[in-house]
């Protein structure tokens, strides 16, 4: 009877020892990485936009640029299908463009061509390309960081 009790204790001690032995390095290094702050209002948005597109203070700059498109009209955002970075940037643009209506379109290839033809210019204020290349004929591009290109629709008519 006593032997079983000792086996019980030995089993749990061994399990917890393995648990700590495996976890220790992972949890330890996770607690050491990064540093606290800065305590800025839009810390998360700015950090991501800076890391992915090189835009500093993107939470202020992007809405400023989008405001120049006028109050009306939606924003069409092209992102690469099954490309996490492109989709994330597209969602970030959708996030900061509130309360403007947005439409996120996933495209399979690196360049948008025929999807652009489906857009009705009357209801769209601008088109944003996130890690996607606009067609070569499209003029008036405004580059916002390394992987975001904005094309105001009112100026795009050929």
């Amino acid at each position: 009877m006593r032997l079983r009790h000792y086996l019980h204790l030995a089993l749990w001690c061994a399990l917890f020892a393995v648990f700590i032995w495996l976890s220790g390095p992972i949890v330890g290094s996770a607690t050491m990485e990064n540093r606290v702050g800065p305590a800025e209002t839009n810390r998360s948005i700015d950090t991501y936009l800076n890391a992915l597109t090189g835009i500093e203070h993107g939470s202020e700059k992007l809405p400023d640029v989008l405001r120049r498109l006028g109050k009306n009209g939606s924003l069409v955002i092209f992102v690469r299908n099954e490309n996490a970075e492109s989709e994330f940037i597209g969602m970030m643009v959708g996030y900061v463009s509130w309360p403007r209506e947005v439409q996120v379109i996933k495209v399979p290839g690196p360049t948008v061509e025929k999807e652009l033809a489906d857009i009705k210019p009357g209801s769209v204020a601008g088109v944003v390309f996130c890690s996607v290349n606009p067609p070569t004929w499209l003029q008036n591009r405004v580059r916002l960081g390394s992987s975001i290109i904005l094309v105001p629709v009112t100026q795009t008519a050929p």
Partner: protein
Amino acid sequence: MIVLGLFAALFTIVIAGCGVTISMLALAGRINLVECACLSWLLGCGVVSLLLWICGAFCSGLLLQAIVALLCLVLAIAGWRAKRYANAKFDVPRPATTTEWILAGIVAIEVAVLVFVSFKHTLGWDGLLIWELKARYAFLNGGAIPSSYYSSSGRAFSHPEYPLAIPFTELWLYLWMGEPNQFWVKIIFPLFYAACAGLLALLVSRLSGKRWIGLLIAVLLPFVPSISASPGGIVVGYVDVPLAIFYLAALGYLLLWFQTSDSRFIMVFAACSALLPWIKSEGIILWVVLVLLGFVLSFTKRRLTQFSVSLVPGLIVILVWQFYLRFVHLWPQSDFAPPTWSALRNNIGRLHDIFGILFAELSETSHWSAFWLITAVAVIYLLASRKLERIALASAVVGPVLLYSLIYVFSTWSSYSAHMMSSVPRLLLHVMPAGWLAIGLALSQSKREIQTL
């Protein structure tokens, strides 16, 4: 000024939760201060978010903030009056031995470390684009999310159908701080962790009768890498850990009610289980699991009526939220097809892959270390004990894992395996604290119970 507003927001959450908690616990005459603090945070977040959502339908801005703050105060006064009426006293549970002092000290240090670590990270993908986004939009709109948000196809990526407990807790902080501050808002997640550690220690101690085991389990809790070092943990502002804590609390108090027949515990169960569907849509699955287990437990105790009444708040939350989503014309979008027989027949062949992915995830040491191995051993212990409440606890750990896996049979993603691999690590977090509860009880089994193994 921002930090002052932050403290005011946290204070109002805690006093509202404290009022509700004391109203339930005062009947016993003694109120455990640790238990009261943990439940005050959980129920306070639930109450404040619900009040913001309901009152936000009628008013906005400073008036909304003032009304909700006033209601928090009313709840606190009601709790205080209930305490006086019941002549209840606060009780500080002091560690009795050196071992307990050391373990309690380590738990306190771990909480402090996780508060510190939380401020080192930004909000994660879901933390920002699903949860904080709602808080910000509501803040910019005076405290209520505009109905156009729910019907917008372009913002379907942010899952407008997800409930508002955490976003509106964040909103409450924003209203008091006067700005949507993404740095300070993260304070709520380590506070959830602190409540989890406290409740886990308390529930294991009560159910096992050994306080040192409860404290030991609370010490081991943060060593699960998914809590602090993986996507979905508390440092990135996801709601999966808060949901897991509500599940732990509801399950723990259900078991305590079964063990003692104390009506206080079924009231706490009612409150915590009702908030499960208000934290995340998957909370409905956890609620259903608890309902099934509760019916079995209450049937054997011949207390079906009392248990059935305790389900009413949860049912109301589920139905009202679904009604609201229809009312605001939610954009129809889902990652899952309706669970029909024909869909099940067509996709049944996925099961082999699904359980393969599940097993691979459970054995992923960078996410879980050896946690699921230990949990599996604990489940065997509990099943072998042949005690109903312990078998119920084992089922509460295994049941959600199986149900969560089976829902991928109905996944509408082009690659259901990619869908599962991207989301199942976070879903498993929901039962992790309940797994620790199972481990605590298995560890504490008496010598006589070990003979049955």
